[in-house]
C-alpha cells in the first residue's frame, strides 16, 4: 500500500490516462428487447456450457439453455423468451466462430416461474452458505469485471486455505467506462445486500469496497449506507490505472502482495466486482439468473453516450443505435475499455456476460502510430505494475529466447497495456509479450507432459 495525498493506491508502476468518463451522469436506461438474441455457450473462462435445448423448442426468459460443461464452467440462460431458432457456430468478440444458441423473441415476453423481476428490495438472507453457493452456480454468475471467471469457484475455498476479508472491486479504472459507477449510484442498497451474501458465502465478517476517487458521488452514497452495516468498509482510492487489477487492488486496500503464480486466496482474500455482487444479489434473493448486464456505450464521437441495461445476446449494433448510431468517421469499435478491450471486426456479435462497454474511436484515434527504435528511456519499466521489464521481454520474444523470458517472469504480466501506452516510440510491447506468454505457456505444458 502506498499513501498519496491521504489516498491509498498500489505501490508499483501505474499510469493515469485521460479519464473521459463521458457517460458518468447518464442514468441506466433499459435497452429495448431485441427481436432475437444469439447467446454463446462460452462466455466464461473454462469449459463451454453444454446446450440442453433443441432447435424449435420454446423457452422462457431465465430458463437454462446450456448447463455447466465441467468444474470450471457456468450455466447459460435464455435472456428473452421465444423459440430456439438455431444452434450454430457464430462469430463472437474473440473473432472466432463458436457455438451460440439463437432465440427468436415472442410477441409477449414470458418469464420463468419463480423469478422476481420487480425492483423491490429484499434485505433478509435466509440461506446457508451452501444454499447461496448453489444459487450462484445455478444463476450462471461469472466475474463481470471482464475476466468472466465463474464466481462459485472463487467462493469455493480449497481445503487448508482461509479468507479473512472480502474485497469488492468498484474501481472501474478503465477510461471511458461508467457501468460500475452508475450501478453503485443507482443500486447501492442492493449492492450492500450482495456484499453481505458474499460475506456469508465466504465465511468472513469483514468486507472492503474500493472505489477510485473520481467517483465521489458513488463513494458518498455507498459510504452512508455501509456506515450502518457491521464490517463493511468503503475506501476511496487514488485514481491510477490498473488499480482494478486484482493483485493491485489487494495491495492498495490491505497491503498484501499475492506471490507470483498464486491466487488472492493465498493471502486470505477473494475479490469480486460490484457488477458481480449485484448479479449475486439477484440470483440469490430474486432467483434471477445472469441474463442482463449494464453496458456503457461511449466515445468522443458518439452522439448520446450512455449506460444500458442490456440482455445477454443482444447485438452490439442495437446498443450503438440506442446511443445515436454509428458515427460516420468510426475507425474502431472496442468491446470493453480502451486499455484492455478487444477491437471488434463485426458489429453483429452479441453482448456477453463480460461486455462492460462498447467504445467507439474515430479514424484518427484508431490509427496506431508507427513503431520506432527503443531509446531505452525506462518508462515501460517504471509504469509496469508487476515490476517487469517490458522492453526486455519484447526484445527476447522477438529473438525467440523463451527460456530467458520465462526466467524473467513473463507469465506474471497482467496485460494491462501500461507499457505500450507509455512508450514514446510506440513500440508493440504488449503485442510481443502476449506472443511470448502464450509460447511459454505452451512450452511449460509440453514439459509437464514429458
Amino acid at each position, binding site marked *: 500500500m502506498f499513501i498519496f495525498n491521504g489516498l491509498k493506491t498500489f505501490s*508499483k508502476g501505474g499510469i493515469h490516462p485521460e479519464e473521459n468518463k463521458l457517460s458518468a451522469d447518464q442514468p441506466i436506461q433499459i435497452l429495448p428487447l431485441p427481436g432475437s438474441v444469439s447467446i454463446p455457450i462460452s462466455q466464461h473462462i473454462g469449459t463451454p456450457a453444454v446446450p440442453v435445448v433443441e432447435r424449435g423448442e420454446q423457452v422462457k426468459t431465465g430458463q437454462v439453455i446450456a448447463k455447466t460443461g465441467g468444474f470450471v464452467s457456468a450455466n447459460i440462460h435464455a435472456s428473452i423468451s421465444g423459440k430456439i431458432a438455431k444452434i450454430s457456430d457464430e462469430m463472437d468478440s474473440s473473432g472466432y466462430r463458436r457455438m451460440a444458441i439463437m432465440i427468436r423473441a415472442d410477441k409477449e415476453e414470458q418469464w420463468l416461474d419463480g423469478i422476481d423481476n420487480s425492483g423491490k428490495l429484499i434485505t433478509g438472507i435466509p440461506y446457508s452458505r451452501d444454499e447461496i453457493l448453489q444459487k450462484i452456480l445455478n444463476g450462471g454468475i461469472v466475474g463481470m469485471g471482464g475476466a468472466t471467471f465463474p464466481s462459485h469457484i472463487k467462493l469455493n475455498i480449497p481445503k487448508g486455505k482461509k479468507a479473512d476479508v472480502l474485497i469488492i472491486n468498484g474501481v472501474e479504472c478503465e477510461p471511458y467506462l461508467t457501468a460500475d459507477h452508475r450501478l453503485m449510484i443507482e443500486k447501492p442498497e442492493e449492492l450492500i445486500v450482495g456484499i453481505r451474501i458474499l460475506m456469508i458465502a465466504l465465511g468472513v465478517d469483514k468486507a472492503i469496497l474500493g472505489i477510485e476517487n473520481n467517483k465521489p458521488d458513488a463513494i458518498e452514497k455507498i459510504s452512508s449506507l455501509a456506515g450502518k452495516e457491521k464490517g463493511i468498509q468503503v475506501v476511496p482510492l487514488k485514481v491510477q490505472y490498473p488499480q482494478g487489477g486484482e493483485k493491485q487492488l489487494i495491495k492498495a486496500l490491505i497491503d498484501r502482495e499475492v506471490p507470483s503464480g498464486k491466487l488472492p486466496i493465498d493471502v486470505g482474500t477473494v475479490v469480486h466486482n460490484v457488477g458481480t455482487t449485484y448479479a449475486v444479489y439477484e440470483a440469490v434473493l430474486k432467483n434471477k439468473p445472469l441474463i442482463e448486464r449494464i453496458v456503457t456505450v461511449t466515445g468522443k464521437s458518439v452522439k448520446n453516450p450512455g449506460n444500458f441495461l442490456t440482455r445477454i445476446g443482444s447485438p452490439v449494433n442495437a446498443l450503438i443505435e440506442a446511443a445515436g448510431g454509428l458515427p460516420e468517421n468510426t475507425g*474502431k469499435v472496442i468491446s470493453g475499455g480502451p486499455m484492455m478491450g478487444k477491437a471488434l471486426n463485426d458489429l453483429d456479435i452479441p453482448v456477453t456476460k463480460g461486455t462492460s462497454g462498447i467504445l467507439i474511436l474515430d479514424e484518427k484515434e484508431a490509427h496506431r502510430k508507427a513503431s520506432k527504435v527503443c531509446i531505452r528511456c525506462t518508462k515501460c519499466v517504471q509504469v509496469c505494475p508487476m515490476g517487469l521489464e517490458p522492453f526486455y521481454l519484447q526484445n527476447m520474444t522477438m529473438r525467440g529466447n523463451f527460456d530467458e523470458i520465462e526466467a524473467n517472469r513473463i507469465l506474471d504480466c497482467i496485460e494491462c497495456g*501500461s507499457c505500450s501506452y507509455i512508450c514514446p516510440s510506440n513500440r508493440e510491447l504488449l503485442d510481443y509479450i*502476449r506472443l511470448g506468454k502464450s509460447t511459454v505457456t505452451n512450452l511449460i505444458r509440453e514439459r509437464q507432459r514429458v
Partner: protein
Amino acid sequence: METKLLTVSHSPHIHQVQSIPRIMYDVVIALLPALIFSVYVFGLGALMVTLAAVLSSLFFEYVIAKYIIKRKPDILDGSAIITGILLAFNVPSNLPIWIVVIGSFVAIGIGKMSFGGLGNNPFNPALVGRVFLLISFPVQMTTWPVPFQDRMSFADTVTGATPLSIIKEGIKNGESMTSLMKQIPSYTEFLIGSQAGSLGEISAFLLILGFLYLVYRKVITWHIPVTIIATMFIFSGILWLGNPEQNMDPIFHILTGGAMLGAIYMATDYVTSPMSIRGMYIYSVGIGVITILIRVFGAYPEGVSFAILILNAFVPLINKYVKPISFGEKVKNG
C-alpha cells in the same frame, strides 16, 4: 455502413502524447537558458561554437544515415541537436570551429552512428566527442576565455584558468588552501555562473532550472542527478573533513567543473544509462565516486566526463544483473 471496414488491433487502444521528438525538444528547451546565459557571459564565440556543433552534428547524422548505413535519415527527431548542444556545452567558447566540427564527427560518426544510431550506442556521443578533443587538442581544450571580456571578438580572447585547475595546480605547487581560495570566485558567483569554464557548464542555477523543467515534463526522473550530486558531496566531504588544507570543500565540488551539466544532462542520457531504478543508483554512485577520485587524485583537474564514460561501459552489466524486484517476487506479508 455494411462495407465499412473497422480497424482491428490489440489493446491498448489509446496512447499517451509523449513522443521521441517531444522528449528531445524538451531537453533542448531545458538547455536554452544556460545557452543564452553563456552567450551573455562569453559573447559571440559561445553562439558560434554551439551553432557549428549543432549544424555539423545534423550534417554528419544525415550523411552517415543516408549514404553509409543507407536508411531513411531522421535528423529531426532532435537527438543529433542535443548531441551538438551538449558537445558545445563541454568545450571552451573560443574553440576553433574546425576543432568543433571534428568533435561533432567523432561524437555522431564514432560515438553514435557506428553502433547503429539512436538507441544502440553504448557511450554518450557528446562525451565521446569531448574526450576525443580533450586528448587530441589538450591546449585548445583547456584555454578558457575569461568571462565578460572581449565578448564581440572570437579568436584572440583574454584567457584564464578554471577554478578546478587553479586549485589543482596550486596544491601541486604547495600553495596553501587559504591563499588559493582568494584566487577563485565566490560560491554565489559559481551558482550564477561568472567563472571561467566550458561554454555551458558555468551556471549551476540555470542548469538546475532546466532539471526542474525536465522532471516536471516527466522526461527524466530525479534519481540519477540527485544521486550523483549527493555522492560527490558526501565523498568530497569526507576527504575535506580528513584534510581541509589539501582538499576543497564539498560545495565547491558540486558547483564547479561541469558537475551539474554532467549529472543532469549527460548521465541521464536514456540510451546509455541503466534500465532499473536500483541500477541507476549503482551507476550514479559510481559516477560520483570516480569524478571525485579523478579530481582529487588524478591527472586531470576535472573528471565528470571520464566518470560517465566509464560507468556507461558498465551499464550492460548493470542491466543484466540488477533487475527490478517484480510484484510478488519477494513477499513479506503480515
